[in-house]
């Protein structure tokens, strides 16, 4: 008996606390969100500020927050201090070809795994998943031997050619998405006499655009940021990509923070631009991977 009376009372009490707690709770949420955002964004703003600051003000105490007047010549000085044009060119080549090749080859493989049948399909897909679990450093030495044998060391080929064969993670994301599209679409197309190739390009690809755009955005970031491979394969200053070029630059201009930050800005800018263009894709993309378990 006591229990039946107690229950509503507890519920009312809990309700009361919630109403009363609503305002402080929301206030707390705002407080944490704002202070957290500031902490997360400050490093980027501090970099921007340092890149535009006159060198003699960098260590000023109290710190100068806003670089007035902006020292744009820092960027000119940085640009002249290393073969930046070569680095940007190399990075653009590696990234542009890489994004197209990775997206296309991963889309083909994902379509094969998700929408067609062939002997051993599911066993092969387990291999795709297994390669995601194995650190690629294990393959690095033989890969180096192989590409060295091809005469590809100190060229961009080792950074470009592997992208022609797709990437396990992108194949996985796209396959998961393709599986969510209704089967009836393929069947209707087949009845109309469409081959699987036509079905892929005219039905699946248009419908899977958000997932494909997600993969392209991820591929852009990965290719642009790729570090271990170019560190190993490229050694003359002009042959570097921007990511490893920055490291070369830091080695030669250590403690010239205004130049280091300007160089970092050049490396970051394309990623920030891509992020704002493809923001929705990034947010959805991670959710798209369908990891419900």
């Amino acid at each position, binding site marked *: 008996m006591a229990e039946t009376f107690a229950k509503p009372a507890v519920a009312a009490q809990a309700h009361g606390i919630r109403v009363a707690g609503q305002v402080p709770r929301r206030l707390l*949420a705002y407080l944490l969100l704002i202070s957290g955002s500031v902490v997360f964004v400050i490093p980027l703003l501090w970099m921007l500020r340092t890149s535009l600051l006159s060198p003699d003000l960098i260590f000023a105490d109290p710190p100068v927050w806003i670089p007035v007047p902006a020292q744009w010549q820092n960027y000119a000085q940085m640009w002249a201090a290393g073969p930046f044009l070569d680095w940007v060119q190399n990075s653009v080549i590696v990234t542009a070809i890489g994004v197209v090749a990775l997206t296309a080859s991963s889309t083909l493989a994902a379509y094969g795994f998700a929408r067609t049948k062939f002997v051993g399909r599911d066993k092969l897909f387990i291999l795709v998943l297994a390669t995601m679990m194995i650190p690629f450093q294990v393959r690095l030495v033989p890969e180096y031997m192989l590409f060295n044998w091809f005469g590809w060391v100190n060229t961009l080929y080792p950074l470009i050619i592997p992208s022609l064969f797709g990437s396990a993670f992108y194949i996985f994301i796209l396959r998961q998405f393709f599986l969510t599209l209704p089967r009836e679409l393929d069947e209707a197309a087949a009845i109309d006499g469409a081959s699987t190739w036509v079905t892929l390009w005219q039905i699946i690809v248009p419908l899977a655009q958000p997932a494909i755009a997600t993969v392209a955005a991820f591929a852009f970031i990965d290719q642009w940021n790729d570090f271990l491979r170019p560190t190993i394969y490229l050694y003359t200053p002009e042959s570097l990509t921007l990511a490893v070029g*920055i490291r070369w630059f830091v080695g030669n201009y250590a403690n010239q923070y205004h130049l280091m930050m300007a160089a970092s800005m050049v490396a970051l800018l394309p990623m920030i631009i891509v*992020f704002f263009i493809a923001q929705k894709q990034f947010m959805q993309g991670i959710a798209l991977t369908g990891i419900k378990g």
Partner: protein
Amino acid sequence: MSASVAARRYHWWRKNHGILYILPWLVGFLILQLFPFVASLAISFTKWDFGSAPSYIGLDNYRQLAADPVVLQSVVNTIYYTVLSVPGGLVLAFLLAVLLNQEVRGIAIYRTAFYLPSVTAGVATSVIWIWLLQPDGLVNKGLGLFGVHGPSWLASTTWSLPALVIVSLWSVGGPMILFLAGLQGIPQSLFDAVSIDGGGNLSKFFHVTIPLMTPYVFLTSVLGIIGSFQVFTSALVMTQGGPAGSTTFIVLLMYWEGWQWWRMGYASALAWALLVVILIFTALQFRLARSWVYYEYDRSETGGG
């Protein structure tokens, strides 16, 4: 007779032609995955300076590896880094996701602020943090506001590794978005059920949110551990493995052995040691998962997922 063979072949291809779509991946798998994987194991049993032919030395590389104090230090450092950065990253990502899941105005701005650093992670990020972590840098200035006298991060054997962990926490946006997607997929009906039973916000959090999020936490920790064992860029750019080897990680050591000192056999053995450590940790996680990951509830039944 030959006509029927041709017909059978045609029929087989009609049924199995889908294999053509995965052909690029399959070729890449054989040449760039399977062959190097097997070859690397073979090379790890040799002494190979790359200039002359490799010579078979059996398990010598592995024996040397086990006795090498630098290797031991790199393994300890890598595990220490993982133990700090993966749980720390998960907790931070989860808290940020819970915050972003509140009904507040301007959520897109906060989400962007938290997520942007993870997109920009890489060399440029490492360079920024060299600057922020100077003894008189912004991090220590910030700590000074709270009366804390900050250490000389990257120059300190005690604080260099935690400094790299801080940098990794800064780019925690990926798991955060994953958790946010998971939180938004929890059906409201479950929270309502807790309310009807008289439960408050805390019991909603502990009896609905946490159990339903465990599959996400599991996935993130598996991938997070695999990733953090491969830590390389920040250590090479920010500390070059120092000071006094305090940030020498397994992959960094492998890079030096292979491409600074051209000891390819030893570098391959190190890579295999890395693989074994990762497999042990991954297997352990799958084993432990049975006791804490909650899979019984099927989202598709209520249309929540």
